């Protein structure tokens, strides 16, 4: 972006090159965005560099080169960075970073003054472990240059030693006649997607300067998989093990839907919830069991029982769902405990399959304000009632939800929390989440490695493995003489106990990976660091004070060592500003922040409308 000025070519600022280079090896994506801007005017101009990157990514580097001098960002402890930032603000200097949290993306924005006829090069690097989601990995690149760019290029190189099953791209912003300019090549293990539109191809209409490049460029792929222990790769003393077996029978599940129908759900939210529930009920496997508990300040269990998802029961449940309407306050504690009791009783009475997954899916749009309203107490109650037996998934609907409360309650009980954005596609979001947990394939998965030969292992025990997802474990090889690494997987299928074993020769695997010379050599180590940080951050949410401190120290240590901008670190860049040095700070926004609602901006006749505030800042931790 070159800001407001950029919309008008007369402004003098020109983006003459923009290159997005993405290299993926074994699901670990290393992305570089390089943008070159020249000021053709006779006066100084302010150029903005604004990028949206996936929330799951960590920024690892940023630099800008002005007049041949490169200003590089340094990752620092958040407090240290904050002090530096505050100092700059107190001196009245602009600290030019704006960040905001969207659904899937977060924003990185910086501005700098460029003198007449001068050039600036912005370079941003971020890394991400692509997560397998509903049977595919997605690389999302948001494309939105504010003007036509002479050299615009997106290059995505994928290398998956396991073999690439398919590779597709989705660029809905492109008119049909332009999709052919996206080049895709695919061999057994390598994929390449390249998009390099000329100036003419970028033009919205023959004589205008508006660009068609405005939207998401999404690359989707999956790797080959079968029923095996998966693949293990070893590079520079670190290993990563990907496990996502195919060809397994799904395990039945028992779901208690705990649905908020308090007054705040009235209108669209209630209608969308009903719509999503109807679809989810339709999609239920006949071997599954389900119950519906609805709550406001009181709670009610549909027909006081749990039912097998037979066509008749589903049809009856759908009639009930259509009648759910919004009213009253919000008591989350009572219905959650009721759900646990219902599962307990159904298991005791042997109503449910012996090998099955039991879960509670809570959908709410607000804070508890009735019954037990202390969030900490509710979390304690639910955790103690469940005692590690059932999973809790919390869906926070809308903007008023206290996400951290739901997140902790989920993580305490081996589940995840998810925001449902109040939008026209909310039913699809709800259904999409349900699809992720709809098909459990394995239970109690344990991945074993030779104890004396490895250290710093990431999480290696999992309660469930769901179809379409993937288990990733990484660690450090501590035995220098290790010749072969044996990975064993123990798990339960729908009916049997399953053992899978993979043995890899260390030298062989290292050679193969090194010979590829495809991506930076230490990717396995960085992947390990990324995964460790992500898991520690999650663990930190439900940790007690002492443990929390240890976790925080470890996250910080790793974030600084590997230069990751995580919720505990910030990146400080010192930039030149009219003969004085100024700095800005790049933070990682957290999910708990209020989601900014799109606001309309108004300007009134006779009033000067400030286009750019001196700074905008949201704290993230």
């Amino acid at each position: 972006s070159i800001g407001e000025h950029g919309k008008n070519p007369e402004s003098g600022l020109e983006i003459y090159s923009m290159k997005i280079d993405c290299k993926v090896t074994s699901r670990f994506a290393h992305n570089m965005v390089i943008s070159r801007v020249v000021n053709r005017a006779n006066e100084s101009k302010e150029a903005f560099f604004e990028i949206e990157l996936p929330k799951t990514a960590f920024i690892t580097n940023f630099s800008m080169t002005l007049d041949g001098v490169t200003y590089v960002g340094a990752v620092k402890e958040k407090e240290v960075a904050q002090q530096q930032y505050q100092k700059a603000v107190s001196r009245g200097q602009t600290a030019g970073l704006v960040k905001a949290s969207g659904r899937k993306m977060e924003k990185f924005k910086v501005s700098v003054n460029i003198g007449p006829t001068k050039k600036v090069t912005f370079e941003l690097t971020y890394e991400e472990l692509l997560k397998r989601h509903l049977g595919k990995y997605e690389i999302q690149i948001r494309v939105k240059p504010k003007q036509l760019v002479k050299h615009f290029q997106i290059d995505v190189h994928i290398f998956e030693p396991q073999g690439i099953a398919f590779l597709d791209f989705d660029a809905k912003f492109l008119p049909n006649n332009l999709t052919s300019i996206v080049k895709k090549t695919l061999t057994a293990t390598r994929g390449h997607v390249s998009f390099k539109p000329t100036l003419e191809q970028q033009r919205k209409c023959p004589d205008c300067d508006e660009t068609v490049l405005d939207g998401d460029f999404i690359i989707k792929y999956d790797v080959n998989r079968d029923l095996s222990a998966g693949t293990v790769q070893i590079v520079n003393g670190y290993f990563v093990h990907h496990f996502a077996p195919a060809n397994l029978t799904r395990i039945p599940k028992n779901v208690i839907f705990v649905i908020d129908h308090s007054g705040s759900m009235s209108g669209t939210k209630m209608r969308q919830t009903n719509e999503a529930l109807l679809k989810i009920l339709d999609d239920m496997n006949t071997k599954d069991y389900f119950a519906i508990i609805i709550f406001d300040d009181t709670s009610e269990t549909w027909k006081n029982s749990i039912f097998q998802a037979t066509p008749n029961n589903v049809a009856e449940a759908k009639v009930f769902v259509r009648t759910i309407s919004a009213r009253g306050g919000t008591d989350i504690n009572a219905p959650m405990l009721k759900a646990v009791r219902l599962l307990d009783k159904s298991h005791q009475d042997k109503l449910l399959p012996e090998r099955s997954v039991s879960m509670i899916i809570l959908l709410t749009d607000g804070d508890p304000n009735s019954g037990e309203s202390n969030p900490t107490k509710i979390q304690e109650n639910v955790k103690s009632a469940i005692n590690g037996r059932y999973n809790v998934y919390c869906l926070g609907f809308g903007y008023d939800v206290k996400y951290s409360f739901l997140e902790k309650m989920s993580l305490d009980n081996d589940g995840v929390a998810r925001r449902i954005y109040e939008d026209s596609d909310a039913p699809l979001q709800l259904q999409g989440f349900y699809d992720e947990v709809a098909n459990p394939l394995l239970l109690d998965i344990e991945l074993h490695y030779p104890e004396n030969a490895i250290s710093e292992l990431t999480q290696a025990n999992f309660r469930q493995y769901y179809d379409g997802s993937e288990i990733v474990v990484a660690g450090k090889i501590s035995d220098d003489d290790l010749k072969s690494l044996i990975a064993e997987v123990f798990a339960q299928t729908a009916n049997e106990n399953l053992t899978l074993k993979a043995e890899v020769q260390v030298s062989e695997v290292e050679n193969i990976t090194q010979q590829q010379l495809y991506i930076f050599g230490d990717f396995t180590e960085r992947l390990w660091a990324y995964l460790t940080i992500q898991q520690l951050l999650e663990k930190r949410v439900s940790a007690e004070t002492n443990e929390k401190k240890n976790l925080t120290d470890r996250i910080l240590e790793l974030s600084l060592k590997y230069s990751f901008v995580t919720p505990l670190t910030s990146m400080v860049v010192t930039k030149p500003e009219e003969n004085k040095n100024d700095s800005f700070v790049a933070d990682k926004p957290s999910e708990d922040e209020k989601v900014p609602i799109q606001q309309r901006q108004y300007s009134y006749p006779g009033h000067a409308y400030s286009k750019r505030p001196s700074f905008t800042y949201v704290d993230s931790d």
Partner: protein
Amino acid sequence: PHFVISINDHSDAICFNIDGKPGAILNLVTDPYTDFVVNGELIGEKKIEINKKINTYFGKFGIVNNKMDVKVEVSTKTITVFHGEDKIVFPWSATASLTKESFSISIIKERNLTLTMGDDATFVIVLHRVWKNHPLHRDFLGFYTLDSHRFSSMTHGLLGQFYHEISAEIYNIHPGLDEGKSDATMIVKGHKLRVTRGYQKDYRFDPKRGTNVPCWFVHYNGKGFIDGSPTDYVVSSLF
């Protein structure tokens, strides 16, 4: 395929070939008492030359234990376990095991699998990998019975009929029609047969070279040694 049967309390062995048509399915074991069946499907070479003898191998096995509600289909590509309505598919490229009470299957990648069904049966299926670009040969399978002592006396099939020890008398050993090979007379199942001394391979322990098993070869598709003729063992489907 070559069949090898131990006789006389494992002191000697009998071998014979069965020449069938590619695609034909042969019954190897049927025990009506335990409701247990093993069938094998024949495959031929990649190219079949006119007027030349067609060599066949086993390319697929179907094993059914109805009492346990388990079916296993083993091909040169995958191993599929059907348990009730469940279906699990293993590739040969993975080392894996699956257990449920008295049923277990254990795969050693690219080599063999051991199948145990209660106290009734233990089998090993050996995978023979052939160079993918070989103009004629293709991958095939071998089937070994390790334990069958709990099968009923009604067990039949090309292998099953021999699950209960049979005795054969071999005498009159003399130089045979083939130079360097001895011929002998064997009395078995009331028949008097000419047999020739030879070797077959056991590939359980050395999948590449195998170990030699000396045996008396029964000519003409095991005629007189097996009950009836090979066509009596042709069945319509793997399960």
